[in-house]
């Protein structure tokens, strides 16, 4: 059992590496010609959106609670990492190392915010929790509008351009892998039990509040990391970027992909974040189409496109070669 699972981990690492090499091959041979830089940019956007959406899915899909304030954590990560990277710039640190430190700082700040928000807010459930998360996110936004160090409501610009696609790809893979391991461990199990029935979970000896706050914090941490990549990709930002609509957009990407499916979050986020670029000439109709898709998904596939289904390389290989064994990761 353990051996098979470990083998499937190895297989997935190889799969991730393979996809990476494919990208390198495409980009380095300039298959896209003049638009290589542009497409690389879209892919970077996809990377940070995947991290944000997957982290929100921890709360929405696995814990089963609404959060309509994820953009708040993203903004904490974005601003913190931007401040850290500009403070450390020119100190002789290699760029990649600088980037990592900034992202970790952003994640840590968002995580701490997650604890501070989670402890009071997670006493509420359902619609009320959704409202309180909106309120917290708005408070965070107003704070950034008033702090001098974050531009005092004006654009904060001149952030280092550190978000290189190749780096972001591996950071994204790492983040998703960690979230995957979290979900498939005792933490994920308890959180799912809480989602199913919090009263029964407490009656099974689970400290409901503790595990909820913990999951919320982990989600906030990764939202912060995603925000860090965002900041160092955009190089300029304003607090209104992280308003209620951004939270709603992230939530809808989770739902379209599938609540409780990290695969859904990855594909949903990758697709939806590249959509604005692909449909640039119809930008006027883009949000119209997007909202219609959202309603259609809700009507015909309320659990999202992928439901709780997870992609498994092991399963595919088993099917292709008909090998025996209990492989699911």
């Amino acid at each position, binding site marked *: 059992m353990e051996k098979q699972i470990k083998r499937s981990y190895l297989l997935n690492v190889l799969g991730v590496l393979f996809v990476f090499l494919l990208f390198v091959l495409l980009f380095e041979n300039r298959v896209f010609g003049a638009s290589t830089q542009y497409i690389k940019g879209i892919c970077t956007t996809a990377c940070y959106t995947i991290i944000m959406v997957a982290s929100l899915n921890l709360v929405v899909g696995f814990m089963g609670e609404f959060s309509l304030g994820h953009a708040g954590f993203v903004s904490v990560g974005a601003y913190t990492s931007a401040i850290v990277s500009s403070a450390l710039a020119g100190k002789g640190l290699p760029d990649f190392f600088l980037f990592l430190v900034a992202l970790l700082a952003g994640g840590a700040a968002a995580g701490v915010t997650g604890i501070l928000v989670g402890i009071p807010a997670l006493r509420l459930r359902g619609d009320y929790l959704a409202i309180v998360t909106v309120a*917290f996110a708005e408070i965070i936004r107003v704070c950034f509008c008033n702090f001098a160090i974050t531009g005092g409501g004006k654009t904060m610009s001149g952030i280092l351009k550190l978000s290189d696609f190749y780096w972001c790809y591996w950071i994204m893979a790492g983040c998703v892998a960690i979230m995957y391991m979290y979900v498939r461990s005792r933490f994920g199990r308890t959180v799912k039990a809480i989602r199913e029935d919090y009263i029964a979970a407490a009656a099974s000896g689970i400290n409901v509040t503790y595990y909820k706050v913990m999951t919320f914090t982990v989600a906030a941490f990764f939202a912060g990391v995603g925000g860090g990549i965002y900041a160092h990709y955009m190089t300029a930002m304003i607090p209104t970027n992280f308003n209620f609509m951004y939270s709603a957009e992230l939530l809808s990407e989770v739902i379209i992909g599938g609540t409780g499916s990290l695969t859904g979050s990855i594909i949903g986020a990758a697709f939806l974040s590249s959509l604005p670029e692909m449909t640039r000439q119809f930008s006027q109709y883009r949000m119209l189409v997007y909202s219609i898709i959202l309603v259609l998904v809700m009507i015909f596939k309320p659990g999202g496109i992928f439901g709780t289904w997870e992609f498994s390389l092991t399963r595919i290989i088993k099917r292709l070669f008909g090998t025996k064994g209990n492989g699911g990761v």
Partner: protein
Amino acid sequence: MTFSLFFQSVINGLNQGAIYALIALGYTMVYGIIRMINFAHGDFIMIGAYTLFYTIPLMVNAGMPAWLSVLAAIIVCALVGVVVEVVAYKPVRQAGSMSALITALAMSLFLENLAMVLFGAKPQNVQKIFDLPTINVLGAALPLNVVLTIFIGVIMMAGLQLFIKKTKMGKAMRSVPQDRDASVLVGINVNKVITVTFAIGSALAAVAALMYCTKYPRVTNDMGSMMGLKAFIAAVLGGIGIIPGAMLGGILVGLIEIFVKLFAPGWYEAITYAILIVILLVKPSGILGKNVGEKV
């Protein structure tokens, strides 16, 4: 703070709050009966405002009284509300509150972007239907439309209360949130009740749009979202689902905003939200609400 400044602030707060209250009534009405946050409610206000913008000149040119366009706005809003309910909300009603919430967000997005495509992104000025004077009371300027807005709010609140408490339809409305299946069993047409609820809730948005436009005559396609969020918070503050709560919540939010603006202009939104959070944590069902726990 001088007395006249204080008094003026109270008036300004009421002015702001009365409009929140009118919008909040619609939120509370729908939530009270369907247990759904209708995020598109703010956008119904936008629709009402655009209807006013287009119909007032028509009425004036046709030599008819301008206030007839309010009727037009009420009809348009009620129609849009019913269509949104039937086309989008009804199919997801069984799918759980997460789907309902997302659908409502999607409809809000849809209406805003549809309005942009149809009417353009440029703000438009709505002609005033009536021009009420501002009078001087105790050294403070009191625009009479504040009085009118509050008056309309109280009338609507009382009317809704009566409707829900006394009429047969109102009784059916109260039974639906208690137990939907049992309501069906005693012969209540739940779909009809919900449709009527949306028609009334959306018609309230048209009235709110009118009062909003007399205060701020600007119409934009996204005017509803921020306004809606604040009004929604007002409804929650007062106790969502409770009609007098919406009135109370709206006026409180207005007063809080104006008074905080006096001392910390950059922070008024944050403080409003902070108060909301505190109230929800202390009493999740709002100021006038009753706490109900889950049965084990």
